[in-house]
C-alpha cells in the first residue's frame, strides 16, 4: 500500500485543550482531505484542502497544507469529549483513475 503517515499515532488531552495531528504523504496531490471515524462506525468527511491552498478553517477545525514538505496538519481547538475518535488524512492518487489513499490515523482521546 502507499498510505500516508499520521503522527502522533495516539493523543490524549484534556477537554478544552487544542489537539494537533500531522499527516505526511508521498506523491503530488490535487487535494487532501481529513476524515473522522468513531469506534465501529464509518468515516465522516471533515474538510478538504486543495493543493493551491495553504490554510483552511471550518468551525473549530484548522487545516494547513505544505506541498513542498508533502505534509498537512489538523488542529482542533477547544476540544470536547465528543471529539474522541480516530482521524485520517486522505490524498488523491492518480494512476489511470483517481482514488483516495488513507493514512494510518491518529487516535484522539479527549478526557472530560
Amino acid at each position, binding site marked *: 500500500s502507499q498510505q500516508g503517515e499520521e503522527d502522533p499515532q495516539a493523543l490524549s488531552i484534556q477537554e478544552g485543550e487544542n489537539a494537533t495531528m500531522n499527516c505526511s504523504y508521498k506523491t503530488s496531490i490535487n487535494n487532501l*482531505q481529513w476524515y473522522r471515524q468513531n469506534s465501529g462506525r*464509518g468515516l465522516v468527511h471533515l474538510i*478538504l484542502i486543495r493543493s493551491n491552498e495553504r490554510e483552511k478553517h471550518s468551525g473549530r477545525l484548522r487545516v494547513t497544507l505544505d506541498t513542498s514538505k508533502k505534509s498537512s496538519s489538523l488542529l482542533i481547538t477547544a476540544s470536547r469529549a465528543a471529539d474522541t475518535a480516530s482521524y485520517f488524512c486522505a490524498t488523491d492518487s492518480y494512476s489511470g483513475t*483517481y482514488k483516495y489513499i488513507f493514512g494510518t490515523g491518529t487516535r484522539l482521546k479527549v478526557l472530560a
Partner: protein
Amino acid sequence: GAGVSQSPRYKVAKRGQDVALRCDPISGHVSLFWYQQALGQGPEFLTYFQNEAQLDKSGLPSDRFFAERPEGSVSTLKIQRTQQEDSAVYLCASSRAPGGATGELFFGEGSRLTVL
C-alpha cells in the same frame, strides 16, 4: 436513501466459505469505492467503479475477491474461499463526481467480516 447503506453489518464465516457484501450508495452518485480496514489501521483501497464500469481493481488482494456494480447503483463485493486474513471491516464509499478527486467521499458504516 439518505446515506450509504451496507449489509450485513456483521458476518461470521467459516474458513473456505464464500461471502457477499452489499453496498447501496447515495442515489445518483457516480463513483463507488470499496476499502478494507484492518483493526487499528487506515482504510486500504480495493476497487473503484464509475457508474457500472470497474475502472480500477488494483487493490483487490487476490483473485478470490470480486466486485460488481451491474446497473451503476448497488454494488456487491464477493470473497470466495474466505481465509482468516480476510477478517476486516469492508467499507463502501460513494461520491457525486466521476473519479474521487473532485470531492468528499460518503462512507457507509461498514461490514465487519470475521473468518473463523
